[in-house]
């Protein structure tokens, strides 16, 4: 599973990363998690607001901090 967290580096993006890692740990699932901070690369995803969460190439949410519960749902849906 490939997870990308998009954000130029503010505390909100860190929080999304933290929650994602917690969600993965709770579900006992491994994934390739990377943070993308380069604005040009972020623009390629066509999202309208950071932080954003992308799983297996699909944008799950953008412009807000999702709850750990939501993140778990998205991860489970992509298994």
């Amino acid at each position: 599973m490939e997870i990308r967290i998009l954000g130029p580096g503010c505390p909100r993006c860190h929080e999304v990363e933290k929650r994602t890692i917690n969600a993965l740990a709770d579900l006992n699932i491994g994934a390739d998690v990377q943070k993308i901070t380069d604005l040009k690369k972020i623009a390629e995803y066509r999202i309208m607001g950071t932080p954003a969460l992308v799983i297996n190439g699909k944008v799950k949410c953008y412009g807000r901090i999702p709850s750990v519960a939501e993140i778990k749902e998205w991860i489970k849906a992509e298994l």
Partner: protein
Amino acid sequence: MIWDIITGGFIALKEYIALHVLTCLIPAFLLAGAMVSFISKEAIIRYLGAAANRVYSFLLASVSSFFVAVCSCTVIPVASGLYFQGAGIGSAFIILWVAPAANILALMYTGAILGYNMALIRVIAALLMAFIVGSIMSAFFFKEERGRGFQIESGTKRIIKRNDIVLLLLILASLLAPNYLIRKGPYLHKIYVWAVATLLVIAFAIYGKTREEIKGWLTETWWFVKIIFPLLLVGVFVVGIIGKILPPSFIQNWLGGKGILPSFLATLIGAISYFATMTEAPFVDTLLKLGMGKGPALALLLTGPGMSLPSMLAIMRVFGLKKAVVYIITIVILGTAVGWFSSNFIF
């Protein structure tokens, strides 16, 4: 000597923060949190996509960036996301400009420190500049713009619930009332007004909103406090130190008066320097006290947060050199013009 400079920093902290925490900063952060929680970004984006003509989409872009993109790091992604999804280049660059130049937190703070007249002029100037920037960007890149379509999935069209509008207005009132109703007299009176207004806000919130909504709102508010307040403290401290170091004659010579040169220099300084959210207000206040003209001060208020060297480079990378250059030159010319015009016809 050094001690003097350091105390300058602490005195600034007291003047700009201690005095404003209750009656300005707390309501302002609550308002920002409420806007992010209760205003639907998705709905606004859908309206932008459906906008039939340019004037309407410019208007929508201007007003919504005023309300929506309060966190500065998200501005470029929002603008680039919209643009690459097919929104007009004018709208995208309006968002780039208005969101930082007229962000609600900074405006409230500007009002508290420089007077609400200045804040009002700042908003109007920012919106006027937005329209011009949007038009110029659209005109310059007209050939590219033809044939671009905006595709966005359907979904909620409601931007904000009616009750929430009342809540937002109440918070706004708790912000403005202490400063407008109590012009003279002891500071304690301002606190009374603030307390009454805030109690109203709390009552309305408890009565009308679910526990989850309130929790979401307070969480967003707390994010703003966590991210912005420390930067504000540091920024104000630095402003205090700068105020002690800069010689007044220097400011008066280069930034004083009503001419074009001071406005141009102020615009340039603002365009290049990075200003953390809200720090431009104390900085401009300090410069005003040292002898800066009001017009150049307005120019700095606008371009300070609105643009910076890092943001220029980011815009260049994301949108390309040509668009970035047209945008930057337009802002600098407009900033200078606004500064000069307001010096001579408004202030």
